[in-house]
């Protein structure tokens, strides 16, 4: 009964490829997020989705695109992968009016 799940856990791919990371939450939350954690452990928000509307988009390259088929899912698509995209990507969710977010286990992306 995992609250926030991500697949895959590890993803190794070559430069130039297109890949997706899936995220699902079973908490009934209405807002979902994607974060990037770099090699120095620094976490930075990339996107958030509320009721299928993008409400935050930090300075993220347009090669990255979140897609939300429904309220329980927020997938991250990455086109033309670059070496600098190597990182751990975390999905999170929260409910309206709540401040805390619940995180998935992370996806370690390695671009070679």
């Amino acid at each position, binding site marked *: 009964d995992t609250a926030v799940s991500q697949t895959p856990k590890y993803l190794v791919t070559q430069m130039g490829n297109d890949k997706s990371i899936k995220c699902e939450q079973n908490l009934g939350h209405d807002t979902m997020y994607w974060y990037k954690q770099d090699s*120095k*452990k*620094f976490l930075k*928000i990339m996107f*958030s989705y509320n009721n299928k509307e993008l*409400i935050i988009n930090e300075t993220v390259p347009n090669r990255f695109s979140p897609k939300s088929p429904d309220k329980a899912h927020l997938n991250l698509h990455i086109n033309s992968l670059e070496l600098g995209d190597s990182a751990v990507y975390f999905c*999170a969710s929260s409910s309206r009016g709540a*401040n805390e977010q619940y*995180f998935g286990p*992370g996806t370690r992306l390695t671009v070679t």
Partner: protein
Amino acid sequence: AQSVTQLDSHVSVSEGTPVLLRCNYSSSYSPSLFWYVQHPNKGLQLLLKYTSAATLVKGINGFEAEFKKSETSFHLTKPSAHMSDAAEYFCVVNGGGADGLTFGKGTHLIIQP
């Protein structure tokens, strides 16, 4: 705008001794503050949160934190460290609105046997 400063990148304590992880914040609004823990190769787990109720907040695993508005601090403490506490700890602020969470750079807690 909001920001978080974790004052120590690494903290090393002996098992059974107290733990203090320091955090200062800035926010344009009355913030909500959190501590998250990340064990090696794991996701982030919420330890505790402050949301303008009691200034002393108790969390899981014996951790607690005190919100001090005058000092803009939200330090994390534990009376007696355990080996299983070795992890990365993140202080986090949510200033409200659509900005989401802002993370500090993390403090790596090392527990010496």
